[in-house]
């Protein structure tokens, strides 16, 4: 499953991470940067190591919110994109509203989500969804609009159900674009989950960041941010892996 290529890529990523951490450590020590501004990587790693179990728990919660928000964003985004490309009316009348709503920063609306949806996972998932969905919409529309003429022609001539036309012709052709959208949406969903946890939560990395900020515990803030970074890379890697599996025809000559 995990080929040598993936291993190599993983090793390379790890290597650069280590380099960055070392440079960071050296800079902090040489310029005597205060911990309150920028803590030492060694302290951050020690912190993570010492409280590994607790951080794991927080991470799992945030991961859960992120993945849920992401899945909804993919499903919803593709659906909206399909509506946009297939109905001029929808595009003309509803797309401007979607764009407008997308431009409203969710951070500013976050308290309203708690008001409407309570303090469970729902408002966080909703924020993650809302922040992530637009990237999926735009890239899916782009993908569907870029289906070559002869491919659509073929689909039309075969006269299958519109279901078949969409799932067997248009979507596979647009898939690489959709995946590009998913890559952007994934990290947006992560940010959305964190923003959601900022507003109302007793767990998750967002809560960790917020409460650590409240006591100026920069080490902990950075520990959580560090996990988020790693999480982002892992989730991205998962997407790339899925992409490779889903598009075997593109890989033929690439190794």
């Amino acid at each position, binding site marked *: 499953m995990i080929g040598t290529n993936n291993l190599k890529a993983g090793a390379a990523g790890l290597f650069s991470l280590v380099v960055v951490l070392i440079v960071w450590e050296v800079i902090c020590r040489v310029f005597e940067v205060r911990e309150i501004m920028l803590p030492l990587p060694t302290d951050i790693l020690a912190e993570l190591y010492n409280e590994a179990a607790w951080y794991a728990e927080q991470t799992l919660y945030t991961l859960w919110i992120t993945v849920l928000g992401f899945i909804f964003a993919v499903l919803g985004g593709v659906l909206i994109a399909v509506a946009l490309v297939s109905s001029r009316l929808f595009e003309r009348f509803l797309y401007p509203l979607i764009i407008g709503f997308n431009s409203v920063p969710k951070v500013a609306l976050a308290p309203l989500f708690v008001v409407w949806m309570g303090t469970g996972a729902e408002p966080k998932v909703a924020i993650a969804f809302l922040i992530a969905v637009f990237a999926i919409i735009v890239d899916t529309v782009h993908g569907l609009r870029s289906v070559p003429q*002869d*491919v659509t*022609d*073929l689909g*039309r*001539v*075969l*006269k*299958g*159900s519109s279901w*078949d*036309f969409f799932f*067997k*012709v248009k979507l*596979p*052709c647009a*898939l690489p674009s959709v995946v590009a959208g998913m890559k952007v949406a994934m990290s947006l969903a992560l940010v959305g989950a964190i923003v959601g946890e900022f507003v109302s939560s007793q767990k998750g990395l967002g809560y960790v960041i917020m409460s650590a900020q409240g006591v100026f515990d920069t080490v902990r803030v950075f520990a959580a941010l560090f996990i988020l970074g790693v999480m982002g890379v892992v989730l991205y890697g998962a997407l790339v892996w899925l992409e490779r599996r889903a*598009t*075997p*025809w593109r890989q*033929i000559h690439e190794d």
Partner: protein
Amino acid sequence: MSLSAVSARKVQKQYSGERGVLALDGISIEIPSGQFVSILGPSGCGKSTFLRCVAGLEDITAGDLDVNGKPVVGRPPDGIGMVFQRDALLEWRTIRKNLLLPIEFAKKRVSEYQDKVDHLLELTGLQDFGSSYPRELSGGMRQRAAICRALVDDPTLLLMDEPFGALDAFTRDQMNFELQRIWMETQNTILFVTHGISEAVFLGDIVMVLSPRPGRLMEVIEVDLPRPRPLSVRETPEFGKYVSHIRELFDKMDLNGDKRA
């Protein structure tokens, strides 16, 4: 089957856009069901356009166009098979799955067509490439795969846009022969665009010759040669007469608009 498979009356097609080329002008023809129609004409005269109009992929701008008795409006008629000038294989499906696409779309059982697919692949020399992706095939191999795909679900109206353009002479002869055989078995209607005059005569019940842009119907030649026609029919004098008649038509065309004498 006295019904017209294709009935065109003063069909005109003007492309939109600034200088909107007039591609077809006043095309009128009745094509009875079960006919094999070859379409000849200089490059850019509107052959592909005509096929696309029949397939419902382009809207005609004047005249009437009926397929199987029903006007073609916006959407393709039923039971059409089409080989596109550029093969239009789906890059993300293996050759075998490309061939099975029409079956899936027709909601038929894929498992029942595996033999037919094998047969077609073998007929076209692609038996080793069923599980290859299109990009692993040569130009001619892709074209053969596209032909197989158009044949697999036995379309009642088969539209072929230069299907043999990328094939060598021998594969082409072979394919000509097989196509005739398949058509005689099924008696479906075929519109066949080609650049080969001899190919057009060999295959066609009638040969439509179009004039240079804007495409007008110059002449419709009925080819009265007994079926099945062996490849050797091409050496007969009757065959030669048809070919030289058409060649004369081309010579008469004012191709100056299109290229220097």
